């Protein structure tokens, strides 16, 4: 029976009746309101739940609440309020932009506070060790480590909260993140809210039948049982409507391990009393296809009707005559490259809350990257008009592409409507890993030729991409890869063919780069081999062939301005020469460790491929004098909240602090499109610039002022200073519209693109971002382990709206690229947790020298380009090239695990 447990929480005595065996993390969050304690795994792996127990950091998820009896528990919010070290950390985390999405931040700061109490001025190694148990997926850790060191020393650069375009200001949403006030997907629901548990397929492919659902549903505490039969509309969704094929609940047949077949809605205690075996379902396992070879073999089980050969779709770009050019080339290299499923591993598992409001409308609060798409998809599933659905995105604890697809939303919607009561759902780590999208595994066959003088002659690429059980973003990958597979180079004779192929695996979807990093791995590795065969320096070879302004891409698109790849490569030149020489010296000493230096470049088209993808931003002056920015672009940690506001404020001509911000909400903000394809700074940024300019023009007109006039905003007043005279505008005296606005402006912007013809010729993107990276590694030849010593990264962002946040994108992208290169491999049923599925920890990410290159883009807002994705396009390739340089063997399969690398070294030794 529930006994009373007493302890102190952040200094206050508390007493609770914890259920037997209840975790401290749950008690803190659900009974004591400490939602600043986050839960990412409930297995001791992620450290998001770190609290101090009698001063020592522990994972609250591994402490039964009763064990806190008589002890001292401290969480982030208490520490920040009471401990000057935590307060210093809160400032420092903001100055370094050490919190991106902020989901790991409570765990990081709690662990760091314990460290600073013990060691006031720790060195880097000490900090890395103290934070080793807390995972971050966004930042690449370097800024976190630096922030902790600076906080300890009370040093470090202070960053202002105010500044226009080009200024490295603090995130405008940073304070909430470092004080534990940010509300993520699972932080909205009040305690005691009904919960949903999903019944999922234990098999990759299985037929199933339900037993007596009615009797089951009649159990005490169970409010509803939902299956495909309970879907009023279409039991299908998908991010690309023409390919929508994913059921909310599988019908008769489950096509991947973890696919949902039913949902149980019940009070929390009732759900906890339920065992998985209690649910009446019988499974019949069926033969499953895993991997591209099995899926394309003759006679393979077929996943979807109308997709023979398990082929979802194909892509093609060609120009010139690749086979003929290759036949005529002086030097030709060829290789087959393979990559694995990569899991996004957002530290926040998908979660949300839904309710029916007073007017009978559905309100869904969930972590998402695409609120408008969610609303449309739910409308189809529910057969409801979109107007009856309101999506209120919560803070997003990492997205990276996976939160573009629906996850918890349809279950929340169906359960809220069925029960008429508020409901919540948070995926467990295992569920999140089993059922949400992954990066596509690729099998790429590439042949590249060159003339004796080093110029590329012929490029023939075929790539198969494992898109899993459902389409998701498979067609986008199939389309994007052929456009990008050349890399940022001039290739006159080019052919790239892709196929997206179904297997009985979780759907592969969008993951930073949409297949481009996989293609870059093949292309950039072969470029190194080609350069070596030609006897050319790898950097010179790339520079010789680099794309230029005025030169056509493989799609025949010509950019007259803003092609920054040459500048990126040039920026690496000094480091390249010095690091190569240093590695040579090191290796001359002999020994079992060998160093190598590698290079790779990449590019990334910002926005949708040859498709309209507008953003709309609304702004206005309210009667109470507030200047309001309605900004519907979801910030998933990358900084859209800050960057778009900076652009808008600059265009309007007021300081940021003069703005009142209204964040994403389908009722309040117009459609700013999805947060993907590196489009928010570029596309929503442009809409924000236009809206700012338009509102400014209206204000100036009101004051009869010239374009050079200055706005003086704040404190409910608005003044216009023109020619030394201030014209006061009193908004309260102006007529207001139904929403209380006396002036408003709403602007849309859509990047100009042109459709691709049957050979993929056209203008797929209005701009590209460019990047080049250099990696220095040390390989232990006996163990096959790779230690990354340093990286340098030069990225052309057109114009860095906020250089601090741009750096953070690069560092975070590199950390993910490093994981993809060296350790990450998702295998259904085998790595469904964060100790078998390895992501980089604080000690795994090397120092990164970030060089921001600014080749202004004529279309970008203030010249800006997108950045999110090209940050990791070259990383795996640069690391693979460095490893090849160190070892003399050529890894062609990712991840390059120690076991795989050692096997290659061993084969070469024989």
């Amino acid at each position, binding site marked *: 029976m529930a006994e009373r447990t007493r302890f102190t929480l952040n200094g206050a005595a508390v007493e609770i009746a914890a*259920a*037997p*065996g209840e*975790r401290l993390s749950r008690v803190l969050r659900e009974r004591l309101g400490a939602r600043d304690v986050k839960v990412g795994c*409930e*297995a*001791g*792996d992620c*450290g998001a739940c*770190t609290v101090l*127990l009698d001063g*020592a*950091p*522990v*994972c609250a*998820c*591994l*402490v*039964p609440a*009763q*064990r806190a*009896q008589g002890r001292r528990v401290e969480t982030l919010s208490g520490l920040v309020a009471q401990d000057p070290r935590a307060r210093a950390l809160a400032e420092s985390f903001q100055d370094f932009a050490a919190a991106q999405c902020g989901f790991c931040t409570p765990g990081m700061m709690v*662990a760091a506070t*314990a460290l600073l109490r013990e060691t006031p001025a720790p060195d880097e190694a000490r900090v890395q*060790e*103290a934070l*080793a*148990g*807390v*995972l971050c997926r966004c930042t690449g850790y370097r800024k976190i480590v630096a922030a902790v060191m600076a906080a300890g020393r009370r040093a470090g650069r202070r960053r202002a909260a105010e500044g226009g375009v080009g200024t490295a200001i603090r995130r405008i949403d940073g304070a909430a993140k470092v004080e534990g006030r940010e509300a993520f997907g699972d932080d909205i629901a009040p305690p005691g809210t009904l919960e949903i548990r999903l019944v999922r397929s234990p098999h990759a492919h299985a037929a199933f039948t339900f037993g007596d659902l009615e009797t089951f549903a009649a159990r005490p505490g169970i409010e509803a049982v939902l299956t495909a039969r309970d879907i009023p509309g279409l039991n299908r969704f998908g991010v690309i409507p023409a390919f929508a094929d994913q059921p909310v609940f599988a019908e008769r047949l489950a096509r991947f391990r973890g696919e949902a077949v039913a949902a149980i809605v019940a009070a929390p205690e009732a759900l*906890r*009393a339920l*065992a*998985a075996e209690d649910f009446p379902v019988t499974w019949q396992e069926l033969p499953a296809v895993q991997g591209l070879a099995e899926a394309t073999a003759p006679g393979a089980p077929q996943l979807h009707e109308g997709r023979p050969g398990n082929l979802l779709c194909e892509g093609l770009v060609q120009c010139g005559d690749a086979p003929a050019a290759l036949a005529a080339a002086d030097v030709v290299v060829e290789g087959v490259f393979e990559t694995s499923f990569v899991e996004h591993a957002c530290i926040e598992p998908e979660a949300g809350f839904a309710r029916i409001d007073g007017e009978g409308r559905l309100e869904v609060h969930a972590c998402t990257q695409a609120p408008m798409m969610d609303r449309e998809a739910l409308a189809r599933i529910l057969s409801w008009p979109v107007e009856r659905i309101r999506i209120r995105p919560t803070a997003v604890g990492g997205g990276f592409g996976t939160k573009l697809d629906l996850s918890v939303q349809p279950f929340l919607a169906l359960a809220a409507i069925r029960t008429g009561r508020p409901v919540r759902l948070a995926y467990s780590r295992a569920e999140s890993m089993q059922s949400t999208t992954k990066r596509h595994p690729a099998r790429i066959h590439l042949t590249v030729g060159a003339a004796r003088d080093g110029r590329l002659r012929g490029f023939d690429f075929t790539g198969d991409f494992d898109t899993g059980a459902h389409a998701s973003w498979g067609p986008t990958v199939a389309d994007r890869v052929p456009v990008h597979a050349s890399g940022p180079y001039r290739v006159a004779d080019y052919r790239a063919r892709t196929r997206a192929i179904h297997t009985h695996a979780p759907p592969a979807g969008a993951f930073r780069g949409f297949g481009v990093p996989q293609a870059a791995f093949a292309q950039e590795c072969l470029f190194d081999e080609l350069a070596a065969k030609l006897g050319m320096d790898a950097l010179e070879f790339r520079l010789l062939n680099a794309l230029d302004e005025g030169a056509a891409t493989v799609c025949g698109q010509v950019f007259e301005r803003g092609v920054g790849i040459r500048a990126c490569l040039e920026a690496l030149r000094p480091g390249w020469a010095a690091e190569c020489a240093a590695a040579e010296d090191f290796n001359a000493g002999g020994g079992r460790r060998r160093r190598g230096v590698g290079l790779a470049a990449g590019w990334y088209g910002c926005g949708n491929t040859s498709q309209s993808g507008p953003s709309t931003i609304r702004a206005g002056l309210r009667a109470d004098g507030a200047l309001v920015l309605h900004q519907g672009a979801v910030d998933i940690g990358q900084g859209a909240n800050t960057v778009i506001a900076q652009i808008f404020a600059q265009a309007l001509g007021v300081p940021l602090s003069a703005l009142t911000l209204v964040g994403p909400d389908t009722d309040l903000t117009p459609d700013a499109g999805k947060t993907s394809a590196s489009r928010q700074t570029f596309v929503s940024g442009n809409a924000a610039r236009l809206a700012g300019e338009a509102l400014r023009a209206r204000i100036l007109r009101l004051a009869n002022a010239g374009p050079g006039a200055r706005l003086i905003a704040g404190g409910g007043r608005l003044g216009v200073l023109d020619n030394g005279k201030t014209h006061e505008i009193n908004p309260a005296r102006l007529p207001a519209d139904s929403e209380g606005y006396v002036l408003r402006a709403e602007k849309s912007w859509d990047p100009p693109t042109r459709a691709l013809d049957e050979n993929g010729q056209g203008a797929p993107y209005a701009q590209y971002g460019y990047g080049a990276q250099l990696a220095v590694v040390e390989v232990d030849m*006996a*163990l*096959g*382990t790779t230690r990354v010593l340093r990286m340098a990264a030069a990225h052309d962002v057109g114009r860095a709206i906020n250089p601090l946040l741009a750096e953070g994108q690069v560092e975070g992208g590199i950390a993910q690229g490093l994981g993809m290169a060296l*350790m990450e*491999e998702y*295998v259904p049923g*085998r*790595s469904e947790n*964060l*100790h*078998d599925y*390895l*992501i*980089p*920890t604080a*000690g*795994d990410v090397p120092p990164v020298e970030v060089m921001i290159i600014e080749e202004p883009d004529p279309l970008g807002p203030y010249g800006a380009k997108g950045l999110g994705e090209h940050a990791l396009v070259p990383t795996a390739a640069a690391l693979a090239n460095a490893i090849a340089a160190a070892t003399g063997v050529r890894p062609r399969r990712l991840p390059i*695990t*120690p*076991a795989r690398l*050692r*096997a290659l070294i*061993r084969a070469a030794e024989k």
Partner: protein
Amino acid sequence: MYNFEIERPGTIEEAVAALAAEEAQALGGGQTLIPTLKARLAAPAKLVSLSGIAELKGLRREGDRLVIGSGTTHAEVAREAAEAYPALAALAGGIGDPAVRNRGTIGGSLANNDPSACYPAAVLASGATVITSTREIAADDFFQGMFTTALDDGEIITSVSFPVPQAASYQKFEQPASRFALVGVFVAKFADGVRVAVTGASEDGVFRWSEAEAALSEDFSADAISGLSVSPEGMIGDLHGTPEYRAHLVKVLTGRAVAAA
């Protein structure tokens, strides 16, 4: 069901009495037990928390031996064994991360006998004695294959008594995230010979590599084992490494442990 009661006895006798109940299980630091409860692999009705028993805590010297209470956390061993048995302290300091080290105990680690846990290698290589609520068990008899030990139902480990070697080192090839050993080798050199224990590698759990022991007892140098080979037969093969790779690591790490000892 994820429902259990926690009893908090204050003495070993009370703990043993509490464990006599049907489906009762000892709870050490909970770092292994709590996550498995969630997964419903184990579902005891009653957990008997050992953390309130003072006699299970702490380290003490007994002649030339180091005795460590079973409830001593990894962090405490890392701190307090540094002088008496540096290789053991280093091993404890390399387990998991600070949060795990602040809660996890040596007794829990040994009772669990995870095939990739670190402590079993130290205990076996040291030829330590596991002292329980009823008897003393030599390390060679204690480990009986992965997740299996000589412990009877209701028997708890109270302490572990280590003879302190002249030289020792633990080398582990650690998994980046958890720091569990993909392979770990503990080498301990005593006046009367060398013991080598390997964790993480074998499907039978921690084991002694007797050929290496013989060779190293003759000549305590990395070269002494260069002619030996480890068979991949019976080695673990998983996502992180093939049996061949693990066999290879056993030899490389043994050499490095000898060099570092």
